């Protein structure tokens, strides 16, 4: 895509969010660099989701400025002023699929909205390959969200988020509620898609494995602002008690050890994952439905 030499995709300065008397963010500043996967961590209630909602214009902050892909979100008067919606994709926590549409039709919604000139055949083809890219089996395309498991719903939500080939991808706790195998597969998928499609990913997570596996940098939310941004070794070098407890607690150590074991033993690149995922999906389809079509 043609976006050479553009500045950082997300720039947040002095953001203040308040619900009544309760301040969520107070002078929060954060910059997301192009082409990185930025993990956002923080204790429950530190306003990670509120931060994401502010960036995508769902939550109007009290003060501060947010610039996404060169456009100011905070100066937008109404929803129509935010004309960069076609350039980002959002995966909400529960998938937020439209329950009356099939997975494929869900993927077509943003396409129809922004590019009404696309023909129906092309829309169906796009929906089908996006769903496959997200690592779902073929038969999931025509299914309703209620027929899918939690992990499949997240993948379907990811397919919809990727429908417009966005530059920016927002993921809100993509691995929450997934089993470890599903979560690891989703991590690999995220990394592979990021590399293939050249995405910038803003990823909210509680999952330490996700941080170690795929995040280029990690931003830590605490005390109503971003207290530190950097790679995990850089964060470990700081002496903020929350960061120390987070990464050096039993779970943090376990995630680091497993990462170290894996890179030491196999050294497998995440880039192979994309090759593996749809193939595996296709294989299972072949086996499970021999008489199909």
């Amino acid at each position, binding site marked *: 895509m*043609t976006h050479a030499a553009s500045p950082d995709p997300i720039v947040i300065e002095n953001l203040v969010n308040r619900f009544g008397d309760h301040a969520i963010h107070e002078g929060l500043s954060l910059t997301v660099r192009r082409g990185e996967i930025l993990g956002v961590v923080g204790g429950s209630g530190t306003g990670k989701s509120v931060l994401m909602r502010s960036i995508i214009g769902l939550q109007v902050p009290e003060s501060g400025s947010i610039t996404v892909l060169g456009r100011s979100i905070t100066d937008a008067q109404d929803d129509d002023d935010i004309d960069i919606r076609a350039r980002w994709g959002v995966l909400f926590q529960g998938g937020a699929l439209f329950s009356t549409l099939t997975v494929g039709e869900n993927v077509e919604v943003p396409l129809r909205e922004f590019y009404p000139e696309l023909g129906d055949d092309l829309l169906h083809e796009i929906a*089908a390959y996006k769903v496959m890219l997200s690592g779902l089996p073929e038969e999931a395309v025509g299914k309703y969200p209620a027929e899918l498991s939690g992990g499949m719903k997240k993948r379907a939500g990811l397919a919809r988020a990727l429908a417009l080939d966005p530059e920016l991808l927002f993921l809100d706790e993509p691995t929450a509620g997934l089993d470890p195998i599903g979560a690891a597969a989703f991590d690999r998928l995220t990394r592979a898609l990021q590399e293939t499609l050249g995405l910038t990913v803003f990823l909210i997570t509680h999952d330490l494995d996700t941080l170690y596996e795929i995040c280029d940098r990690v931003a830590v939310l605490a005390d109503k602002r971003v207290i530190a941004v950097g790679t995990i070794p850089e964060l470990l070098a700081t002496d903020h008690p929350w960061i120390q407890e987070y990464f050096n607690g039993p779970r943090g150590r376990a995630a680091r050890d497993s990462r170290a074991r894996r890179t030491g033993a196999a050294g497998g690149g995440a880039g192979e994952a994309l090759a593996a995922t749809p193939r595996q999906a296709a294989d299972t389809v072949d086996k499970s439905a021999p008489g199909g079509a």
Partner: protein
Amino acid sequence: MRQPAEFSTRDDGAIALAGPLTVATVGPLDRQLRALDQPVAAVDLSAVTAIDTVGAWIAWRLARDAQAPITGASAEAQRLIEAVSRAEAEVDVHAPRAEMAERVPAAVGDLVVSWWQGTLGVVGFLGQLILALGHILRNPRMLRGKALVRQLELVGVSALGIIGLMSFLVGIVIAQQGAVQLQQFGAEVYTVNLTGRLAMRELGVLMTAIMVAGRSGSAFAAQIGTMKLTEEVDAMRTIGVSPLIVLVVPRVLAAVLMMPLLGFYAAILAIIGGAAISDLALGIPFLTFLLRIQEVVPIRDLWVGLVKAPFFGAIIALAGCYQGIQVKANAEEVGMRTTLAVVQAIFMVIVLDAFFAVFFTKIGWG
């Protein structure tokens, strides 16, 4: 405007795509390529300025259908084409849909089966409710007093304003329209009989029932339905709390207790409305109208109205709670069940009202 993607056919039979090949620009190109009816020797991408997965898909589809190689692709284009080629799937985006000849009988069959099962379900639900009430009669402490008071307030007290206004206006309409007809016989003084007896026997309770069905019956279905979706009802069961006793009984009791009171209140307001319009338009003084009511409306009319009210309340609450409990899958179902609850409640209320009308005439209370 955006520069569109274009294609041209070269002398050697290769198709050369040019310009930005992205989701925003390929709409017309896709149509042209689909209409293309010529052999394709190769697909050349060297003049493509930008590409995304949609562009890659179109280039790859063209090459696949023609069994032609792709040439001149940039590294980015190759990467994207590689990715989409692996994600190819021949599937229908829409949920499978049967033929018309199959669907219509299936729909009719479903309707019959669901009607029968619905009837069984309602009867079963009524049985469960009676059992729960029996439990509560034996252990009165099981009754959720707070929930009951809350529902009494929601069903009764907060409905006073709207039901009062509605009945007042209905009273005005009956008196005014009745007077116009009765005047033709010089009998406009019978407007009092008309308004008083209609309000007491039929309209007070019936209009109240319709309003309560719309206000509270729908609320019951939506509340319980949403609680089913958020697994609150399952949580109650797991803890050993009966949803029937906690959720359904207070609502049913509230509707049964409040309907007679609201019905009486509505009848009184309708009579006041009739008296007001008679004073203004017919020259019957307000107080005279009220005094005449005492003389021409037998006390039996009051009983006819009030006896029906608790039955109507029970039907409304039952329909609302039953439909709410039936919610299983998704948010859409909550809306559907809520509508169904109101429609069923109003329909059953009117059926029952017709039954009562015949019944009271037969026993000589006409």
